[in-house]
């Protein structure tokens, strides 16, 4: 016996209360909508409160502070565009912006190229492949601040193992990797590549595995060798991954801080001082909160410009399939 056949329901449906029943249904759904609305705000309230107090308010406050003179001891004092004017004439700020651009572009380009090569290599089947994938990914989950301590000892001119091995194979570094004004940047870039490469390799591997294999079969039938197959199939079909990785890497690298703080503190001679490092120095060592806030907004502007430029550059080349 199905429910619709029960006498009670049939009797109900025969009762001349059609309009009343439909209004009852509307009432129930209206009550449903009200209860959903109330539930939605209850569900959202804790998160919105946290984000409002600890993210939205500070973002606005940083903008305001960037137009003031403010150190911890005295209340903020309106200074108009002073901090931004100072920014354009301050060689330290220009240096930090240049270092950020050098660091971010070198690290990003090298990471994308290496990640793609390694992903193509690790996509083949051979012994130790799983071990290699794990090993390359491992730095990504370690604390950059902690492993940078190890890196700084490895590169130490007197007791550093890598410095010593370098000398043995004929890479003489007279003063030491982190002391030489030109090599220090190279060192922190290498550590930056080392830390994040595994993440990009994983992204590329996922992309390579999503390429339909019949495309490779067709290319092979047409007589394309491995290089041609890479150039005509793999690379164009990975353009979405490449865009994503390049944007993520640029954003990550433009915020470089941890290994620079641990290995060089921005030195020697400010040669590795990036924007975030300078913001830390100005804000939390010199306690110049107004100028540090202006530097923070330079970082926001820089990230916006870099990301938009890349999206435009790649979207013209993207392949849809």
């Amino acid at each position, binding site marked *: 016996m199905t429910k619709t056949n029960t006498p009670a329901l049939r009797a109900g449906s025969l009762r001349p209360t059609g309009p009343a029943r439909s209004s009852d249904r509307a009432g129930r759904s209206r009550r449903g909508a009200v209860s*959903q*609305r109330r*539930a*939605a*705000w209850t*569900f959202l309230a*804790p*998160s*919105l409160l*946290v*984000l409002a*107090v*600890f*993210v*939205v308010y*500070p*973002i606005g*406050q*940083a903008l305001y*502070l960037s137009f003031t003179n403010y150190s911890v001891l005295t209340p903020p004092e309106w200074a108009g565009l002073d901090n931004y004017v100072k920014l354009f004439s301050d060689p330290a700020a220009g240096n930090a912006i240049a270092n950020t651009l050098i660091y971010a572009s070198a690290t990003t380009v090298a990471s994308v190229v290496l990640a793609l090569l390694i992903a193509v290599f690790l996509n*083949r*089947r*051979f012994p*130790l*492949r799983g*071990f*290699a994938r*794990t*090993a*390359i990914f491992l*730095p990504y*989950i*370690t*604390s950059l*601040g*902690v*492993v940078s301590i*190890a890196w700084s*000892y*490895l590169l130490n001119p*007197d*007791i550093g*193992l890598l410095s010593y091995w370098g000398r043995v194979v004929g890479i003489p570094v007279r003063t030491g990797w982190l002391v030489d004004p030109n090599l220090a940047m190279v060192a922190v870039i290498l550590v930056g590549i*080392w830390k994040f490469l*595994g993440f990009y390799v*994983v992204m590329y591997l*996922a992309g390579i595995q999503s390429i339909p294999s019949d495309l490779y079969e067709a290319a092979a039938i047409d007589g394309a060798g491995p290089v041609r197959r890479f150039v005509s199939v793999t690379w164009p079909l990975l353009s979405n991954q490449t865009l994503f990785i390049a944007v993520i890497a640029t954003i*990550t690298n433009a915020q470089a801080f941890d290994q620079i*703080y*641990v290995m060089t503190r921005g030195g020697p001679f400010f040669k590795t001082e990036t924007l975030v490092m300078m913001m*830390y120095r100005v*804000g*939390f060592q010199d306690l110049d*909160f107004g100028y*540090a*806030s202006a530097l*923070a907004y330079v*970082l*926001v502007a820089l*990230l916006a410009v870099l990301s938009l430029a890349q999206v435009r550059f790649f979207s013209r080349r993207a392949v849809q399939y």
Partner: protein
Amino acid sequence: MTAASQGRIARRGRMTVRIGVGKTVAALVALSLALVFLLPIIWMAFASFRTIPDLSTFPPTLFPRGWTLDNYTQVFQDLPFARLYLNTTLFAGIVTVGSLFLDSMAGYALARLDFPGRRVIFVVVILLLLLPFQVTLVPLYVLMHNLGLVNTLAGLVLPRISNAFGIFFMRQFFLGLPKDLEDAARVDGASEWRIFASVVLPLARPALLTLGLFYFQTNWNDLLWPLIMTNDVQDATLPAGLSLFNGEHNIHYGVIMAGAVLSLLPIVALFLLVQRSFVQGIATTGVK
């Protein structure tokens, strides 16, 4: 046996040899690549078991010339190491649990519940997601200073207890779930809270695992925020504490390396335990 078939066998033999050589070369390249990436971690692990004279003898070597456990006992005496460990565990643990809870609630509301203003809030979440967190650092520090929360666990945890990325991530996950179960529960008269807690959350296990590992790892590893929020090393986390003690003339770097190994251990163990689902989660969602 005919000459032709002999030739065929010989050719097949040569082919297997060539494939074998190719795989061996590939395996060797993979091994050296893996060792290059593991070198700092291997060196760190060895250094933590070496004696002080061994560590300062020229030439430097990768393998210890003598073994000791002294660094591991010393790190608890030279540094407030147990305190640092506890601080880090509480910071990463509370942020992970709290943020998973709040973000999945907010993400569920944005994905499934109908209310005016939904679009506006979603756009705000996306905008917050795009801004670098460093821009909030100075005002956050001032705010925490005014609230008297500098050097406290609450001060460290509060700004991280909800996260725009997590809300976005959970919303995307909930959008992909079939609606039938929720609708069935709604018809049965279950409250929205009941639907969320006993129907939706159990289905969200894989997403919560990926996001939770991500939260635990990033906060355990974070340097800048704990560095700013702790003037007193007692209240620091492991990365901030170790980098502050590193280079102090009375603390040998073998001791720091023992601390470093202990600080990496739980994350590496956790990762090796759930490696497959974690890496897959990253690959399919782009969690970073």
